[in-house]
């Protein structure tokens, strides 16, 4: 049995998430990754914005910062630059990171500041009651799109790659074990890492869209996911409607915080 208790603020439980929510799966994967990387709790700062996923910091025994809607990455930027020894993880959602926080998201990726961003993509605003988000697929319903969303949806991982992130992974809550390993990899990788996790919202996404139970949703992830290596050999028609999972992007790029402190050393010597 993995010692999750070591990291949980047990007196803060039970959590506020709905039965069947994917937030717990991602939380546990994150804790396994931190344990395997052997990072002391005092060194970790877990930062979030607003939304269901953003309630995660309250339940874990780290330096935890629950900020304003969309701004987690900007708060995290200040934390990291002022105290580089902190290991920064950010938990955020599709609305938090790519609607209200879209600007901060692309600029944090562009700077390539050393942090791991766990982006819970459930295609909906859960906390506020099921309104459509920038990742709601066209045609799918939300409380603010009763006739189905008319807008094209964001490819979040693609956005992060284009903006300059050094490590980008897409996976799903079905791939829970793999998810932990990807987070582990991101924690040892210097630079901006995005882990986009497709996750089920049984209450506000599955129900209005008649997607069945949590088990049905997880099965759907399983049956519709294709590994990135295989996807590279497939044409667009074959990939249509599929979720490409795995490491999508892994490059070495100059990391901002380290570079800034090198600058400090240089100008102070001159």
């Amino acid at each position, binding site marked *: 049995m993995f010692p999750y208790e070591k990291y949980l603020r047990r007196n*803060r439980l039970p959590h506020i998430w709905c039965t069947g929510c994917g937030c717990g799966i991602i939380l546990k994967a994150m804790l396994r990754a931190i344990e395997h990387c052997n990072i002391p*709790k*005092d*060194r970790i*700062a877990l*930062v979030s914005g607003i939304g269901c996923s953003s309630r995660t*910091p*309250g339940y874990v*025994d*780290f*330096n*935890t*910062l*629950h*900020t*304003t809607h*969309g*701004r987690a990455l*900007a*708060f*995290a*930027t*200040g*934390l*990291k*630059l*002022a*105290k580089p*020894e*902190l290991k920064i993880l950010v938990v955020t959602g599709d609305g938090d990171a790519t609607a209200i926080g879209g*600007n*901060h998201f692309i*600029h944090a990726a562009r700077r390539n500041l050393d942090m791991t961003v766990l982006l819970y993509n459930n295609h909906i605003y859960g906390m506020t009651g099921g309104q459509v988000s920038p990742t709601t697929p066209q045609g799918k319903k939300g409380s603010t799109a009763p006739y189905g969303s008319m807008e094209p949806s964001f490819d979040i991982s693609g956005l992060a790659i284009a903006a300059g992130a050094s490590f980008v992974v897409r996976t799903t809550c079905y791939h829970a074990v793999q998810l932990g390993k990807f987070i582990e990899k991101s924690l040892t990788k210097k630079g901006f890492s995005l882990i986009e996790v497709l996750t089920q919202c049984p209450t506000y996404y599955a129900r209005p869209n008649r997607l069945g139970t949590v088990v049905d949703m997880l099965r759907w992830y399983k049956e519709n996911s294709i590994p990135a290596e295989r996807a590279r050999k497939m044409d667009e028609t074959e990939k249509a409607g599929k979720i490409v999972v795995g490491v999508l992007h892994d490059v070495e790029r100059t990391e901002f915080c380290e570079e*800034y402190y090198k*600058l*400090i050393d240089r*100008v*102070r010597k001159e």
Partner: protein
Amino acid sequence: MNSVTAKLMTGNEACAEAALFAGMRFFAGYPITPSSEIAEVLARRLPLEGGVFIQMEDELASMAAIIGASLTGTKSMTATSGPGFSLMQENIGYACMAEVPCVIVNVQRGGPSTGLPTLPSQGDIMQARWGTHGDHPAIAVAPATVRETFDWTIRAFNLSEQYRVPVIVLLDEIVAHVNEKIVFPKPEEIEIIDRQRTNTPPEQFMPYQVTDSAVPPFADFGSGYRYHVTGLSHDETGFPTNDPAKVDVLHRRLSEKIERNKKSIIHYKKIMLDDANICVVAYGSCARSAHRAIRHARTIGIKAGMLQLHVIWPFPYDMLWELAQRIETFVVPEMNLGQIAHEVACATKRNPKQINRVDGGLITPEEIVEQINHVSV
């Protein structure tokens, strides 16, 4: 600050120098006229002092970044002007709620909206008090000269550290860009206050527990105290709560920590008021014109004096009420349509004579003399 004790300098430059002297080691900002020189000076100077400068993607992010940095125990600042100040209101509220010390410099220009980017205004007086939503504490200072900008920027950091609140420095385009001689105070004469750190062991630490002071002792993020910070209403443990009793205690304490200490926060200068029967109430660059105006009034036999406000919020209602017991007439020149005049009316229970300009021009000594003349007959 080097060994030279006198320099020719603008208000924006003096503000940047003062912040460094106060120990500010993190600045995040976004370019905006007429505040950009503060960022430009700090972009060059901060790395030399071992600090960090970052130009963020917007003012929302700038405000967020300085709060993040301050949580590690680093004194932090941003600088902006009206449109950017509007964007910062969201996280100014967060800093009030989570009690994170930081300093926000607002070099006021004409508004609303993009307004008059290169011309002065004092239109953000009320925004500095009530800009963010909900009841909250507020401290705002308003220097009138380059030297005052130096002194009051340092004071802003001290107040921010002492009370764990965001403190707003209200410059205006004139004070920010005027180039004048500044004689620096001797370093040993400058008081620097650092936030009180907790000495409670981590396992017993509660981040918002207060004793006799209404200000909880601080623990730096990453120093072994693993605690939770949120913008939600919380109890002394730092975790969110909806318990009406606990929420009430929090919100009353946040305002009370300033209200209870307002006597030591409020600051003003009384000039030639002892025998005056006309009192000009002025602040920022208008105080410069007012000073000249009352000296001129004296030469033509009018007993005019002035009250220069260095601290705008909290406002000195009690002191103005006392003055109103012996002074009949109050004159308030300001580059807005009466934001402080309204407070003066509230405090003195009479209508002050207003001199208002919102055309981007400074109120001149002549305009004030004319009004003084008018009310003295």
